[in-house]
């Protein structure tokens, strides 16, 4: 991808709020437009990622800002929703179908277990519609198959919470010790409450445009948006079964596509935001994104390299474990963080000298998106 840049980003903090999704979304969209120095009238199309709101959600949000008369398209792919919207927006710019696209993710997710995650009725009634259980099974498989331990799972959470202390947009901004994570309420063994992200509310947005239209704005190049959906031998919740033998990996496929498209290797990456739905998911992402060989995930964590100040900080925003996860907004929340990192605007959580950044979301229905951003 050669011609796509991000000229502005905006965010509504992630957390719990008395106001509705329209206000959450309008806040982030307006902030992104202002950051880009672009008016709604200069936008050729608007893509809105959301999972749980009503019909015509994007139209309802944008109506708070004006009625630009351009196409507004709603996109849904579970936790991968804003990755999917970003994929479409980038393609529109790259192919010349649009000159400037506003991409927004917004969610007002109720507390607790996520209902309607794609399970069939027989699974739900029979007790199999429990998302954390599947993350727990993936965590157990990681522990059984590598030297990762439950203490490593707690360390992921402790690391990300330490990062979030510096992020005013995160829901939880308090450091938690490994012992506190281990002692928190058991949800599905081996995962405790503090090893799982909290579904919550928030919004994030980005303005994408062509290089020609960037006009000296403080732009970051969007070098790749690699989106994959499930293949025959992938497994991710909520599928009722999986191959008993070797499986393929969605993150690996998406990452390989992104790196090839961007012309980068894992060694080039300076900062990563990945889908830490639970602590084990971050370790599995180290493998899938090519940051660690299979079996070396926990060693990479323990080395401190993925902590702020380390060689390759992962989730400097605090990740979903600290920010919470507004499903439709989480991917663009990562993009917000990475764009500001590449611009050098991240304050006390700045990754010094960051020039190449990678974001990663994955969600139910088997969708994974890996994005690569660079500072020219």
């Amino acid at each position, binding site marked *: 991808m050669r011609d796509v840049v991000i000229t502005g980003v905006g965010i509504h903090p992630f957390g719990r709020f008395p106001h509705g999704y329209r206000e959450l979304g309008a806040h982030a969209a307006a902030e992104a437009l202002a950051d880009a120095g672009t008016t709604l009238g200069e936008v050729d199309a608007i893509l809105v990622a959301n999972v749980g709101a009503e019909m015509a959600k994007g139209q309802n949000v944008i109506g708070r800002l004006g009625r630009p008369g351009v196409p507004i398209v709603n996109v849904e792919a579970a936790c991968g929703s804003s990755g999917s919207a970003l994929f479409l927006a980038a393609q529109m710019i790259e192919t010349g179908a649009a000159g400037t696209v506003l991409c927004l993710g917004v969610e007002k997710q109720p507390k*607790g*277990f996520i*209902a309607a995650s794609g399970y*069939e*009725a*027989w*699974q*739900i*009634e*029979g*007790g*199999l*519609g*429990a*998302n*954390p*259980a599947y993350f*727990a*099974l993936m965590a*157990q*498989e990681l522990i*059984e198959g590598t030297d990762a331990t439950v203490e490593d799972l707690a360390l992921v959470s402790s690391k990300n919470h330490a990062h979030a202390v510096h992020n005013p947009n995160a829901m939880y901004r308090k450091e938690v010790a490994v012992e506190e994570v281990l002692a928190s309420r*058991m*949800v*599905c*063994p*081996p995962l405790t409450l503090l090893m799982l992200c909290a579904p919550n509310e928030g919004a994030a947005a980005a303005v994408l445009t062509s290089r020609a239209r960037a006009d000296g704005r403080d732009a970051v190049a969007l070098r790749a948006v690699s989106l994959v959906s499930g*293949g*025959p*031998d992938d497994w991710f919740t909520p599928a*009722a*079964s*999986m*191959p*008993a*033998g070797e499986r393929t990996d969605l993150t690996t496929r998406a990452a390989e596509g992104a790196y090839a498209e961007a012309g980068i290797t894992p060694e080039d990456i300076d900062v990563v935001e990945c889908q830490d739905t639970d602590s084990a998911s971050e370790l599995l992402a180290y493998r899938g994104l090519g940051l660690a060989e299979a079996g070396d995930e926990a060693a990479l964590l323990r080395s401190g390299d993925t902590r702020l100040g380390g060689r390759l900080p992962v989730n400097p925003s605090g990740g979903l474990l600290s920010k919470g996860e507004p499903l439709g907004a989480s991917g663009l929340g990562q993009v917000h963080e990475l764009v500001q990192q590449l611009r050098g605007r991240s304050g006390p959580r700045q990754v010094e000298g960051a020039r190449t950044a990678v974001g990663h979301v994955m969600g139910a229905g088997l969708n994974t998106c890996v994005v690569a951003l660079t500072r020219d």
Partner: protein
Amino acid sequence: MTPDTTRRLFVREDGEAGPPAHGDRLRLVGSSCPACGRVAFPAVDACAACFTPAAEVLLPAEGTVALNTSVLHPPPGALVPVPYHLGFVALGERSVTGLLVGAVGEPGAGLIGRPATTVAHVIDDEHTTYAFAVGPEARA
């Protein structure tokens, strides 16, 4: 269970047509691709890999626990009381999710490698599903 499909999830191992009683041995109804051999559960019309029309097959009744966890807080819509065990049981070429019942111990107990048999699990008068009855000894 409330159907999302006209396909059956399971049949009685004894071949009788009536509803199974709690604990009766079952066979899960999957499908197999005549071209590439991929097995699916639940059964699908066409192979996920090569799109060839797939044929129904009965999965083995007996397998081994591949992964397991416990659910301590009730998920939305569940009719089974917490806490309960669930996991993947390897039934030949496919690992299938299901409730784990029988010699499962306390929540969080490690059950990997234990033998498991597919049985009927009657939740209430209107809802019967399958579960895996876990044996006490790990398979050698």
